[in-house]
């Protein structure tokens, strides 16, 4: 089986969820009650808007992740062929990782890794 397996599994996932949803809709009881459809907040009425503003810190980590993850993307091809390349590849990756690490240290020093 070749690459179509990916599509098959994708469809399988869709069918599983859709089918189970359908089944559940068939056999589950239904009752309409507005109070039931209120957002859950430990039993109390919600206060203020429920789509609250969250900390900017989440974005900070998202950005950090984005950067480091992309660096990992560069490491992947390197890692695969490293054994064939030898010394030059080692030196280059040490430089690369040094700069990367320096970036991390900088972010650390600047308090980007602090969760407050």
């Amino acid at each position, binding site marked *: 089986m070749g*690459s179509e397996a990916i599509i098959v599994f994708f469809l399988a996932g869709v069918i599983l969820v859709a089918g189970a949803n359908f089944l559940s809709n068939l056999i589950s009881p239904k009752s309409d009650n507005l109070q039931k459809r209120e957002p859950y907040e430990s039993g109390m009425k919600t206060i203020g808007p429920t789509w609250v503003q969250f900390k900017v810190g989440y*974005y900070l980590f998202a*950005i950090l992740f*984005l950067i480091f993850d992309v*660096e990992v993307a560069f490491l992947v091809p390197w890692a695969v062929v490293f054994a064939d390349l030898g010394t030059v590849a080692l030196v280059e990756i040490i430089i690369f990782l040094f700069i990367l690490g320096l970036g991390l240290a900088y972010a650390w020093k600047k308090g980007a890794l602090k969760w407050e």
Partner: protein
Amino acid sequence: MIPGVSITEILTLTSILFFIGVYGFITRKNLVSILISVELILNSSVINFVVINKYLYPEMLQGMVYSIFIIAVAAAETALAVAIIINIYRRLSSVEVKETETMKY
């Protein structure tokens, strides 16, 4: 190479993607949407590179390498843009384009 799919079809797709991006960039009013439109443009180029490489010039990997770098650059760009947009949001509580129009002409 995907069997049964010719390069023309993929290139048509990427062109459509590209123009959706450009259209979105021009018409969208939300900074984040604009950013996403730009990403569409970049991704269309990435697909282009990979496909052209794979279909037309499979002996060299130039297109592939290029696409990795585009991804990296796009990530950096997004990171920076998002950071700036967040900064704007924190000051203006809005990311609509019309809020960022204090300077004219």
